[in-house]
């Protein structure tokens, strides 16, 4: 057994892995073969670096070892088939010169290209998530499977199908044009947002692994922000994650029960994450083009800035939800708008807003509509109405902890009626 890697080297390897993979794919155009070769290079590094010391340029070292492995594999394959020509045939003839000229620019960071490739809009979101965590995040298939509570074989299939789709789609591995980038950056942010939520929303199951997902999403978004520091929405997404994740410790009670925002112990909120998120959003908002992630981050910021729940600046939140609704026409946003309206103008005004969307087929029969109505009816003093809607919402939710939360509300209100 070689000596164990110290934490610094582990982090270094994890940061370098996507860059190395990106560089190798750019050269050899084969996702699956490149990934195998990079894995071998990482293993070689883990075996050699602890005793031999870090190479002068670890990134170049890894790229070189991976490249050697991949050409070895290609040669072995070629020898077996008596077809030496295959070595060059991997790279289209017209691109061979460009490839050679490229050799010198080893300092280029290919991580962004890799992210764009993994989050390609043609992939299903489950595949894009799995591939991103594997290729850019460097998580093992076992870790990803554990986090999503599925068997390892299932996750392995998702990853291999995603690689297959990339192969057959012929998505070129190159820096996207400005237009492509704007278009695909949306998909990249969406995938990162989904990974974050997957980690943030689950309290059941192997909790540790799930919260690792949020940490990973944060790490990748931070990386993306470093790569495109001028993109306001990326900054907004990072701020949103920081400002949301800051409340994690206060969000659940000792037995995993949900604690709503207005009842959380704000002393448990992570002050460092909040200041970082606030600084980010404060620097981003005045720069112009405002998108939905920035608005959501701004809403989270208003909540996080209030020392006590009753200090929350609901008027500002109401305005921000209004802005968000004009951007997206999403009935879920209107639900939140109704809550903010009730906080500013009283529950009757909030209930009016609910009536206005109650027939929207996208939300009709959704448990959140009942939950919000129950909440507003309770605030309006209509206990029996509130109980009925809390119960209806409890019947319809597919979340165990939310069901418990809603049933507890109905039960508590029932006791006050007796």
């Amino acid at each position: 057994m070689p000596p164990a890697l110290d934490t610094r080297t582990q982090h270094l390897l994890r940061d370098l892995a996507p860059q190395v993979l990106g560089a190798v794919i750019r050269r050899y155009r084969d996702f699956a073969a490149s990934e195998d070769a990079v894995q071998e290079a990482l293993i070689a590094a883990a075996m050699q670096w602890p005793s031999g010391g870090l190479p002068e340029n670890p990134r170049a070292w890894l790229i070189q070892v991976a490249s050697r492995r991949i050409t070895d594999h290609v040669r072995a394959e070629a020898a077996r088939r008596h077809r030496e020509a295959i070595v060059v045939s991997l790279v289209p003839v017209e691109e061979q010169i460009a490839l050679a000229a490229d050799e010198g620019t080893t300092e280029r960071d290919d991580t962004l290209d890799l992210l764009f490739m993994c989050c390609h809009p043609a992939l299903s979101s489950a595949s894009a998530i799995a591939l991103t965590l594997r290729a850019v995040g460097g998580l093992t298939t076992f870790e990803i499977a554990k986090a999503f509570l599925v068997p390892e074989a299932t996750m392995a299939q998702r990853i291999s199908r995603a690689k297959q789709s990339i192969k057959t789609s012929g998505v070129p591995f190159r820096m996207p044009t400005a237009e492509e980038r704007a278009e695909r950056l949306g998909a990249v942010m969406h995938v990162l947002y989904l990974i974050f939520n997957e980690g943030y929303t689950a309290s059941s199951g192997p909790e540790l692994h799930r919260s690792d997902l949020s940490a990973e999403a944060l790490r990748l978004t931070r990386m993306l922000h470093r790569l495109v520091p001028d993109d306001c929405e990326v900054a907004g997404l990072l701020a949103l994650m920081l400002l949301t994740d800051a409340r994690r410790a206060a969000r659940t009670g000792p037995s995993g029960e949900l604690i709503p925002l207005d009842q959380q112990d704000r002393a448990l909120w992570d002050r460092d994450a909040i200041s970082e998120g606030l600084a980010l959003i404060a620097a981003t908002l005045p720069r112009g083009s405002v998108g939905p992630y920035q608005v959501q981050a701004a809403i989270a910021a208003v909540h996080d800035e209030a020392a006590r729940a009753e200090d929350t600046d609901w008027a500002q939140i109401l305005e921000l939800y209004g802005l968000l609704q004009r951007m997206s026409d999403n009935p879920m946003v209107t639900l939140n708008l109704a809550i903010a309206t009730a906080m500013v103008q009283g529950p009757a005004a909030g209930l009016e807003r609910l009536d206005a969307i109650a027939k929207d087929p996208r939300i009709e029969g959704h448990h959140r509509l009942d939950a919000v109505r129950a909440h507003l009816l309770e605030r309006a003093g209509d206990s029996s109405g509130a109980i009925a809607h809390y119960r209806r919402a409890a019947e319809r939710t597919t979340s165990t902890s939310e069901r418990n939360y809603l049933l507890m509300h109905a039960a508590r209100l029932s006791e006050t009626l007796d």
Partner: protein
Amino acid sequence: MKYMLMMNTPSGGPYQIAQWPKQDLQAHIGFMISFAKKLGESGELVSAEGLAGPDQAKRVRAGKDGKPITDGVFPESKEFLAGYWIVDVESPERAYEIAAQASAAPGPGGAPLNMAIEVRQVMSGPPKDLL
């Protein structure tokens, strides 16, 4: 999101399948095996199990001393859970599509059984924001 797809024994009792000709039986079993394999390959299968027959089933309740009291079997039972699949899919529509495929498993004479498959969403963690 995860869904449980439940298959009940077709109406007419749990063991009618025993009366099927060998060829039909083979087609049915072959279908089930390749169905599970396909779900595995698409990266959607979480688990799948067939359950032993109703004559092996017992109903258990705790007696006054907390010890188990058992009764059963269920010879008269018309419908009985025969097995289930748990799938992890991107949309409810995809879960219904998979259930419809299971429903069309071949029966006597190779004709699709079109049995009812019950589709239920598996409860999950909390939503991202509460009131």
